[in-house]
Protein backbone atom coordinates (compact mmCIF):
# COMPACT_ATOMS: atom_id res chain seq x y z
CA UNK A 1 0.00 0.00 0.00
CA UNK A 2 1.16 3.47 -0.71
CA UNK A 3 2.59 5.29 2.27
CA UNK A 4 0.95 8.51 1.20
CA UNK A 5 -2.02 7.73 -1.01
CA UNK A 6 -3.16 11.34 -1.03
CA UNK A 7 0.05 12.36 -2.75
CA UNK A 8 -0.20 9.50 -5.19
CA UNK A 9 -3.75 10.46 -6.06
CA UNK A 10 -2.81 14.10 -6.39
CA UNK A 11 0.01 13.20 -8.76
CA UNK A 12 -2.25 10.98 -10.83
CA UNK A 13 -4.83 13.75 -10.95
CA UNK A 14 -2.14 16.16 -12.09
CA UNK A 15 -1.12 13.65 -14.74
CA UNK A 16 -4.72 13.39 -15.83
CA UNK A 17 -5.09 17.14 -16.10
CA UNK A 18 -1.85 17.39 -18.01
CA UNK A 19 -2.80 14.64 -20.42
CA UNK A 20 -2.37 15.88 -23.95
CA UNK A 21 -5.39 16.46 -26.13
CA UNK A 22 -6.32 13.35 -28.04
CA UNK A 23 -5.16 10.97 -25.35
CA UNK A 24 -7.51 8.06 -24.74
CA UNK A 25 -10.41 8.82 -22.45
CA UNK A 26 -9.79 5.99 -20.07
CA UNK A 27 -12.46 7.11 -17.67
CA UNK A 28 -15.27 6.78 -20.13
CA UNK A 29 -13.99 3.42 -21.26
CA UNK A 30 -14.17 2.19 -17.74
CA UNK A 31 -17.68 3.46 -17.35
CA UNK A 32 -18.86 1.90 -20.54
CA UNK A 33 -17.45 -1.42 -19.61
CA UNK A 34 -19.18 -1.50 -16.30
CA UNK A 35 -22.46 -0.30 -17.65
CA UNK A 36 -22.40 -2.80 -20.43
CA UNK A 37 -22.38 -5.58 -17.91
CA UNK A 38 -18.77 -6.52 -18.22
CA UNK A 39 -18.28 -5.36 -14.67
CA UNK A 40 -15.37 -3.75 -12.99
CA UNK A 41 -13.14 -6.67 -13.80
CA UNK A 42 -13.58 -6.02 -17.46
CA UNK A 43 -13.20 -2.35 -16.97
CA UNK A 44 -9.99 -2.84 -15.08
CA UNK A 45 -8.60 -5.08 -17.73
CA UNK A 46 -9.23 -2.42 -20.27
CA UNK A 47 -7.82 0.57 -18.57
CA UNK A 48 -6.35 0.46 -15.12
CA UNK A 49 -3.30 -1.09 -16.46
CA UNK A 50 -1.22 -0.08 -13.53
CA UNK A 51 -3.80 -0.84 -11.01
CA UNK A 52 -3.32 -4.48 -10.27
CA UNK A 53 -0.04 -5.82 -9.26
CA UNK A 54 1.26 -9.05 -8.01
CA UNK A 55 0.93 -9.03 -4.24
CA UNK A 56 2.90 -10.73 -1.60
CA UNK A 57 1.02 -13.30 0.37
CA UNK A 58 0.25 -10.81 3.06
CA UNK A 59 -3.36 -9.90 3.36
CA UNK A 60 -4.12 -6.34 4.03
CA UNK A 61 -7.30 -5.02 5.41
CA UNK A 62 -8.41 -1.59 4.47
CA UNK A 63 -11.10 0.63 5.74
CA UNK A 64 -12.74 2.77 3.22
CA UNK A 65 -14.69 5.63 4.62
CA UNK A 66 -16.72 7.32 2.00
CA UNK A 67 -18.27 10.62 2.65
CA UNK A 68 -20.75 11.56 0.03
CA UNK A 69 -21.12 15.25 -0.01
CA UNK A 70 -23.96 17.33 -1.14
CA UNK A 71 -24.12 20.86 -2.42
CA UNK A 72 -22.48 22.16 -5.47
CA UNK A 73 -19.85 24.80 -5.22
CA UNK A 74 -19.85 25.38 -8.92
CA UNK A 75 -23.31 24.06 -9.61
CA UNK A 76 -23.85 25.91 -12.83
CA UNK A 77 -20.57 25.06 -14.38
CA UNK A 78 -20.08 21.53 -13.15
CA UNK A 79 -22.90 20.16 -11.05
CA UNK A 80 -22.03 17.66 -8.36
CA UNK A 81 -18.36 17.78 -9.16
CA UNK A 82 -17.35 20.41 -6.67
CA UNK A 83 -19.44 20.33 -3.53
CA UNK A 84 -19.07 22.97 -0.87
CA UNK A 85 -21.05 21.40 1.93
CA UNK A 86 -21.48 17.93 3.32
CA UNK A 87 -24.71 15.97 3.50
CA UNK A 88 -24.68 15.18 7.19
CA UNK A 89 -28.21 16.05 8.22
CA UNK A 90 -29.39 12.49 7.84
CA UNK A 91 -26.95 11.26 10.44
CA UNK A 92 -27.70 11.27 14.15
CA UNK A 93 -25.79 13.95 16.04
CA UNK A 94 -24.46 12.89 19.44
CA UNK A 95 -22.00 14.00 22.06
CA UNK A 96 -18.66 12.27 21.52
CA UNK A 97 -17.20 9.86 24.06
CA UNK A 98 -14.57 11.67 26.11
CA UNK A 99 -11.62 9.75 24.64
CA UNK A 100 -12.83 10.40 21.11
CA UNK A 101 -13.38 14.07 21.82
CA UNK A 102 -9.87 14.42 23.21
CA UNK A 103 -8.31 12.86 20.12
CA UNK A 104 -10.48 14.99 17.88
CA UNK A 105 -9.58 18.20 19.67
CA UNK A 106 -5.89 17.42 19.59
CA UNK A 107 -5.73 16.33 15.96
CA UNK A 108 -8.01 18.96 14.56
CA UNK A 109 -6.17 21.71 16.41
CA UNK A 110 -2.94 20.60 14.76
CA UNK A 111 -4.58 20.71 11.35
CA UNK A 112 -6.58 23.88 11.84
CA UNK A 113 -4.24 26.14 9.94
CA UNK A 114 -4.71 24.01 6.86
CA UNK A 115 -8.48 23.96 7.03
CA UNK A 116 -10.66 26.56 5.46
CA UNK A 117 -14.02 27.09 7.06
CA UNK A 118 -15.38 27.54 10.50
CA UNK A 119 -14.15 25.80 13.63
CA UNK A 120 -14.90 22.10 13.81
CA UNK A 121 -17.11 21.00 16.67
CA UNK A 122 -14.92 18.50 18.48
CA UNK A 123 -17.48 17.65 21.13
CA UNK A 124 -20.25 16.41 18.88
CA UNK A 125 -20.30 14.16 15.88
CA UNK A 126 -22.61 12.42 13.47
CA UNK A 127 -22.80 8.68 13.99
CA UNK A 128 -21.67 6.40 11.21
CA UNK A 129 -21.51 2.60 11.30
CA UNK A 130 -18.06 1.02 11.24
CA UNK A 131 -16.92 -2.59 11.60
CA UNK A 132 -15.98 -1.73 15.18
CA UNK A 133 -19.18 -0.04 16.19
CA UNK A 134 -20.01 3.61 15.96
CA UNK A 135 -17.71 6.06 14.29
CA UNK A 136 -18.24 9.78 14.00
CA UNK A 137 -18.12 12.45 11.37
CA UNK A 138 -17.15 15.81 12.79
CA UNK A 139 -17.88 19.00 10.98
CA UNK A 140 -18.05 22.73 11.26
CA UNK A 141 -21.34 24.53 11.59
CA UNK A 142 -21.78 24.96 7.85
CA UNK A 143 -20.79 21.38 7.09
CA UNK A 144 -17.93 22.48 4.92
CA UNK A 145 -15.37 20.28 6.65
CA UNK A 146 -15.57 16.59 7.47
CA UNK A 147 -13.30 14.73 9.84
CA UNK A 148 -13.85 11.03 10.49
CA UNK A 149 -13.20 9.36 13.83
CA UNK A 150 -13.11 5.59 14.13
CA UNK A 151 -11.91 3.15 16.74
CA UNK A 152 -10.27 0.36 14.72
CA UNK A 153 -10.18 -2.94 16.55
CA UNK A 154 -11.15 -0.97 19.64
CA UNK A 155 -7.51 -0.05 20.00
CA UNK A 156 -8.10 3.65 20.46
CA UNK A 157 -9.73 6.47 18.60
CA UNK A 158 -8.13 7.74 15.46
CA UNK A 159 -8.90 10.77 13.38
CA UNK A 160 -8.62 10.00 9.71
CA UNK A 161 -7.93 13.53 8.71
CA UNK A 162 -10.18 16.31 7.54
CA UNK A 163 -11.45 17.32 4.17
CA UNK A 164 -12.92 20.59 3.15
CA UNK A 165 -14.19 22.28 0.03
CA UNK A 166 -10.76 23.57 -0.84
CA UNK A 167 -9.74 20.01 -1.45
CA UNK A 168 -13.07 18.56 -2.44
CA UNK A 169 -13.44 21.09 -5.20
CA UNK A 170 -10.12 19.99 -6.54
CA UNK A 171 -9.57 17.00 -8.75
CA UNK A 172 -13.12 16.61 -9.88
CA UNK A 173 -14.55 16.64 -6.40
CA UNK A 174 -12.82 13.81 -4.68
CA UNK A 175 -9.98 13.47 -2.31
CA UNK A 176 -8.46 10.50 -0.63
CA UNK A 177 -7.06 10.26 2.85
CA UNK A 178 -5.10 7.52 4.47
CA UNK A 179 -3.40 6.66 7.66
CA UNK A 180 -0.99 4.37 5.96
CA UNK A 181 0.18 1.53 8.08
CA UNK A 182 -1.32 0.88 11.47
CA UNK A 183 1.44 -0.26 13.81
CA UNK A 184 -0.92 -2.50 15.72
CA UNK A 185 -1.98 -4.17 12.52
CA UNK A 186 1.01 -3.83 10.23
CA UNK A 187 -0.85 -4.92 7.15
CA UNK A 188 -3.74 -2.60 7.66
CA UNK A 189 -4.33 0.50 5.66
CA UNK A 190 -7.04 3.07 5.86
CA UNK A 191 -8.35 5.04 2.96
CA UNK A 192 -11.03 7.65 2.91
CA UNK A 193 -12.62 8.82 -0.28
CA UNK A 194 -14.69 11.94 -0.53
CA UNK A 195 -17.22 12.09 -3.30
CA UNK A 196 -19.89 14.56 -4.21
CA UNK A 197 -23.56 13.66 -4.31
CA UNK A 198 -24.30 11.02 -6.89
CA UNK A 199 -20.87 9.51 -6.62
CA UNK A 200 -20.49 5.78 -6.30
CA UNK A 201 -17.76 3.53 -5.08
CA UNK A 202 -17.16 -0.01 -6.25
CA UNK A 203 -14.69 -2.40 -4.71
CA UNK A 204 -13.23 -5.44 -6.33
CA UNK A 205 -10.79 -7.80 -4.77
CA UNK A 206 -8.49 -9.46 -7.24
CA UNK A 207 -10.09 -12.55 -8.61
CA UNK A 208 -13.44 -11.80 -6.99
CA UNK A 209 -16.56 -10.11 -8.19
CA UNK A 210 -17.04 -6.40 -7.74
CA UNK A 211 -19.52 -4.92 -5.34
CA UNK A 212 -20.85 -1.49 -4.64
CA UNK A 213 -20.11 -0.06 -1.23
CA UNK A 214 -23.26 0.65 0.74
CA UNK A 215 -23.57 4.17 1.98
CA UNK A 216 -25.21 5.21 5.22
CA UNK A 217 -26.36 8.75 5.17
CA UNK A 218 -23.57 9.49 2.76
CA UNK A 219 -20.89 7.70 4.76
CA UNK A 220 -19.60 4.15 4.57
CA UNK A 221 -16.92 2.33 6.51
CA UNK A 222 -16.11 -1.11 5.24
CA UNK A 223 -13.41 -3.72 5.68
CA UNK A 224 -11.56 -5.04 2.69
CA UNK A 225 -8.88 -7.54 2.04
CA UNK A 226 -6.09 -6.69 -0.27
CA UNK A 227 -5.31 -6.35 -3.01
CA UNK A 228 -8.49 -4.53 -3.83
CA UNK A 229 -9.29 -2.03 -6.50
CA UNK A 230 -11.65 0.79 -5.74
CA UNK A 231 -13.41 2.59 -8.52
CA UNK A 232 -15.20 5.86 -7.98
CA UNK A 233 -17.62 7.31 -10.44
CA UNK A 234 -18.73 10.91 -10.31
CA UNK A 235 -21.03 11.88 -13.12
CA UNK A 236 -19.29 9.51 -15.45
CA UNK A 237 -15.80 10.49 -14.37
CA UNK A 238 -14.23 7.39 -12.98
CA UNK A 239 -11.06 6.88 -11.09
CA UNK A 240 -9.39 3.69 -10.04
CA UNK A 241 -7.31 3.28 -6.92
CA UNK A 242 -5.51 0.06 -6.16
CA UNK A 243 -5.14 -0.55 -2.45
CA UNK A 244 -2.66 -2.90 -0.96
CA UNK A 245 -0.63 -3.49 -4.04
CA UNK A 246 3.11 -3.53 -3.87
CA UNK A 247 5.60 -2.96 -6.54
CA UNK A 248 8.98 -4.54 -6.96
CA UNK A 249 11.92 -2.34 -6.21
Amino acid at each position, binding site marked *: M*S*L*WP*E*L*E*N*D*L*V*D*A*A*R*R*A*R*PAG*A*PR*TASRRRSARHSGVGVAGA*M*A*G*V*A*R*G*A*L*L*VMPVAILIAVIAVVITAGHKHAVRRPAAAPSTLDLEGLQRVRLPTAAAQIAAS*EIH*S*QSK*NLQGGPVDTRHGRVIPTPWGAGYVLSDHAHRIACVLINPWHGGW*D*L*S*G*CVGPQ*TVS*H*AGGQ*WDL*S*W*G*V*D*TRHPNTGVDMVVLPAGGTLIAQRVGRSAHTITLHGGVAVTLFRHPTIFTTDINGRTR*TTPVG*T*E*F*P*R
Partner: protein
Amino acid sequence: MSRLFTRTTDAELLREADQDPAAFGVFYRRHERAVLAFAGHLSGSAQLGADVMAETFAVAFEARDRFDPQRGAGRAWLFGIARNVLGASRRRGRVEADARQRLGMNQLILSQRQLSAFDRVIAADGEAAVREWLSSIPAPQRDAVRLRVVEEQSYASIAQQLQCSEAVVRQRVSRGLATLRDVVGGQR
Protein backbone atom coordinates in the same frame (compact mmCIF):
# COMPACT_ATOMS: atom_id res chain seq x y z
CA MET B 1 -5.87 -8.51 -16.15
CA SER B 2 -4.73 -7.73 -19.59
CA ARG B 3 -1.50 -6.12 -18.59
CA LEU B 4 0.46 -5.58 -15.47
CA PHE B 5 2.89 -2.80 -14.82
CA THR B 6 5.00 -5.10 -12.72
CA ARG B 7 7.54 -5.67 -15.41
CA THR B 8 7.25 -2.27 -16.95
CA THR B 9 10.42 -0.19 -16.80
CA ASP B 10 10.53 3.27 -15.32
CA ALA B 11 11.07 4.77 -18.74
CA GLU B 12 8.02 2.98 -20.07
CA LEU B 13 5.92 4.13 -17.14
CA LEU B 14 6.97 7.74 -17.64
CA ARG B 15 6.17 7.53 -21.33
CA GLU B 16 2.87 5.82 -20.63
CA ALA B 17 1.85 8.53 -18.16
CA ASP B 18 0.86 10.78 -21.05
CA GLN B 19 -1.75 8.30 -22.16
CA ASP B 20 -2.64 6.66 -18.87
CA PRO B 21 -2.15 8.78 -15.75
CA ALA B 22 -2.28 5.64 -13.60
CA ALA B 23 1.17 4.81 -14.92
CA PHE B 24 2.64 7.71 -13.01
CA GLY B 25 0.89 6.39 -9.92
CA VAL B 26 2.71 3.11 -10.41
CA PHE B 27 5.99 4.96 -10.85
CA TYR B 28 5.27 6.83 -7.64
CA ARG B 29 4.48 3.69 -5.68
CA ARG B 30 7.55 1.96 -6.98
CA HIS B 31 9.87 4.62 -5.59
CA GLU B 32 7.88 6.32 -2.86
CA ARG B 33 9.49 4.58 0.06
CA ALA B 34 13.03 5.04 -1.18
CA VAL B 35 12.56 8.70 -2.04
CA LEU B 36 10.94 9.42 1.31
CA ALA B 37 13.74 7.62 3.11
CA PHE B 38 16.34 9.48 1.09
CA ALA B 39 14.80 12.92 1.48
CA GLY B 40 13.97 12.33 5.12
CA HIS B 41 17.49 11.15 5.88
CA LEU B 42 19.09 14.14 4.18
CA SER B 43 16.71 16.66 5.69
CA GLY B 44 16.60 15.05 9.11
CA SER B 45 12.84 15.43 9.36
CA ALA B 46 9.86 13.35 8.31
CA GLN B 47 7.81 16.47 7.60
CA LEU B 48 10.53 18.03 5.48
CA GLY B 49 11.26 14.72 3.82
CA ALA B 50 7.62 14.27 2.88
CA ASP B 51 7.43 17.79 1.52
CA VAL B 52 10.59 17.30 -0.50
CA MET B 53 9.28 13.97 -1.76
CA ALA B 54 6.05 15.56 -2.94
CA GLU B 55 7.91 18.27 -4.83
CA THR B 56 10.38 15.70 -6.19
CA PHE B 57 7.65 13.65 -7.81
CA ALA B 58 5.98 16.78 -9.14
CA VAL B 59 9.28 17.84 -10.72
CA ALA B 60 9.76 14.31 -12.03
CA PHE B 61 6.37 14.39 -13.66
CA GLU B 62 7.13 17.68 -15.36
CA ALA B 63 10.52 16.40 -16.45
CA ARG B 64 9.37 12.93 -17.49
CA ASP B 65 10.16 13.56 -21.12
CA ARG B 66 13.76 14.23 -20.22
CA PHE B 67 14.32 11.06 -18.24
CA ASP B 68 17.11 9.15 -19.93
CA PRO B 69 17.48 5.55 -18.75
CA GLN B 70 20.94 5.50 -20.32
CA ARG B 71 22.10 7.91 -17.64
CA GLY B 72 20.84 5.84 -14.75
CA ALA B 73 17.87 4.17 -13.14
CA GLY B 74 14.67 5.95 -12.29
CA ARG B 75 15.42 5.87 -8.62
CA ALA B 76 18.82 7.49 -9.04
CA TRP B 77 17.14 10.14 -11.16
CA LEU B 78 14.62 10.78 -8.38
CA PHE B 79 17.36 10.94 -5.76
CA GLY B 80 19.10 13.57 -7.85
CA ILE B 81 15.93 15.59 -8.16
CA ALA B 82 15.27 15.26 -4.45
CA ARG B 83 18.70 16.56 -3.64
CA ASN B 84 18.20 19.50 -5.97
CA VAL B 85 14.85 20.25 -4.37
CA LEU B 86 16.38 20.04 -0.93
CA GLY B 87 19.29 22.25 -1.92
CA ALA B 88 17.03 24.88 -3.42
CA SER B 89 14.76 24.67 -0.41
CA ARG B 90 17.64 25.30 1.94
CA ARG B 91 18.74 28.29 -0.07
CA ARG B 92 15.26 29.75 -0.01
CA GLY B 93 14.50 28.81 3.54
CA ARG B 94 11.35 26.93 2.61
CA VAL B 95 10.56 23.77 0.74
CA GLU B 96 10.18 24.34 -2.93
CA ALA B 97 6.61 24.00 -4.17
CA ASP B 98 6.85 25.53 -7.63
CA ALA B 99 6.23 22.31 -9.54
CA ARG B 100 3.28 21.38 -7.36
CA GLN B 101 1.79 24.81 -7.87
CA ARG B 102 2.26 24.63 -11.61
CA LEU B 103 0.50 21.26 -11.61
CA GLY B 104 -2.35 22.58 -9.46
CA MET B 105 -1.76 20.02 -6.76
CA ASN B 106 -3.43 20.12 -3.37
CA GLN B 107 -1.81 21.20 -0.18
CA LEU B 108 -1.80 17.89 1.63
CA ILE B 109 -2.19 17.44 5.32
CA LEU B 110 -0.17 14.83 7.15
CA SER B 111 -1.61 13.32 10.28
CA GLN B 112 0.57 12.53 13.25
CA ARG B 113 0.10 8.88 12.46
CA GLN B 114 1.42 9.34 8.96
CA LEU B 115 4.40 11.30 10.20
CA SER B 116 5.16 8.54 12.67
CA ALA B 117 4.98 5.99 9.89
CA PHE B 118 7.28 8.15 7.78
CA ASP B 119 9.72 8.42 10.67
CA ARG B 120 9.89 4.65 10.82
CA VAL B 121 10.51 4.39 7.09
CA ILE B 122 13.28 6.97 7.25
CA ALA B 123 14.91 5.27 10.23
CA ALA B 124 14.73 1.88 8.54
CA ASP B 125 15.66 2.79 4.97
CA GLY B 126 17.34 6.20 5.03
CA GLU B 127 20.88 4.95 5.26
CA ALA B 128 20.34 2.36 2.55
CA ALA B 129 18.81 4.96 0.26
CA VAL B 130 21.83 7.22 0.64
CA ARG B 131 24.15 4.29 0.00
CA GLU B 132 22.22 3.50 -3.15
CA TRP B 133 22.43 7.11 -4.27
CA LEU B 134 26.20 7.11 -3.80
CA SER B 135 26.78 3.69 -5.27
CA SER B 136 27.49 5.00 -8.76
CA ILE B 137 30.60 6.97 -7.80
CA PRO B 138 34.06 5.69 -6.80
CA ALA B 139 34.75 5.02 -3.14
CA PRO B 140 36.99 8.04 -2.44
CA GLN B 141 34.42 10.39 -3.92
CA ARG B 142 31.64 8.54 -2.15
CA ASP B 143 33.22 9.07 1.24
CA ALA B 144 33.86 12.73 0.54
CA VAL B 145 30.34 13.37 -0.74
CA ARG B 146 28.78 11.50 2.14
CA LEU B 147 30.71 13.43 4.75
CA ARG B 148 30.14 16.76 3.05
CA VAL B 149 26.59 16.49 1.71
CA VAL B 150 24.93 13.98 4.00
CA GLU B 151 26.71 14.65 7.25
CA GLU B 152 27.37 18.31 6.41
CA GLN B 153 30.88 18.32 7.82
CA SER B 154 33.40 21.02 7.03
CA TYR B 155 36.04 20.45 4.40
CA ALA B 156 38.72 20.75 7.06
CA SER B 157 37.13 18.06 9.17
CA ILE B 158 36.69 15.78 6.18
CA ALA B 159 40.29 16.30 5.14
CA GLN B 160 41.41 15.29 8.58
CA GLN B 161 39.31 12.13 8.55
CA LEU B 162 40.32 11.12 5.06
CA GLN B 163 43.92 12.13 5.65
CA CYS B 164 44.21 14.32 2.62
CA SER B 165 44.22 18.02 1.85
CA GLU B 166 41.14 20.18 1.74
CA ALA B 167 41.76 20.76 -1.93
CA VAL B 168 41.57 17.03 -2.60
CA VAL B 169 38.36 16.78 -0.61
CA ARG B 170 36.82 19.64 -2.58
CA GLN B 171 37.85 17.97 -5.80
CA ARG B 172 36.37 14.62 -4.78
CA VAL B 173 33.13 16.21 -3.67
CA SER B 174 32.93 18.24 -6.84
CA ARG B 175 33.59 15.29 -9.11
CA GLY B 176 31.30 13.01 -7.18
CA LEU B 177 28.43 15.46 -7.33
CA ALA B 178 29.09 16.07 -11.01
CA THR B 179 28.74 12.36 -11.67
CA LEU B 180 25.56 12.20 -9.64
CA ARG B 181 24.21 15.26 -11.43
CA ASP B 182 24.85 13.58 -14.71
CA VAL B 183 22.31 10.93 -13.74
CA VAL B 184 19.72 13.62 -13.24
CA GLY B 185 20.47 15.24 -16.55
CA GLY B 186 18.46 18.24 -17.57
CA GLN B 187 15.57 17.74 -15.22
CA ARG B 188 15.38 21.38 -14.26
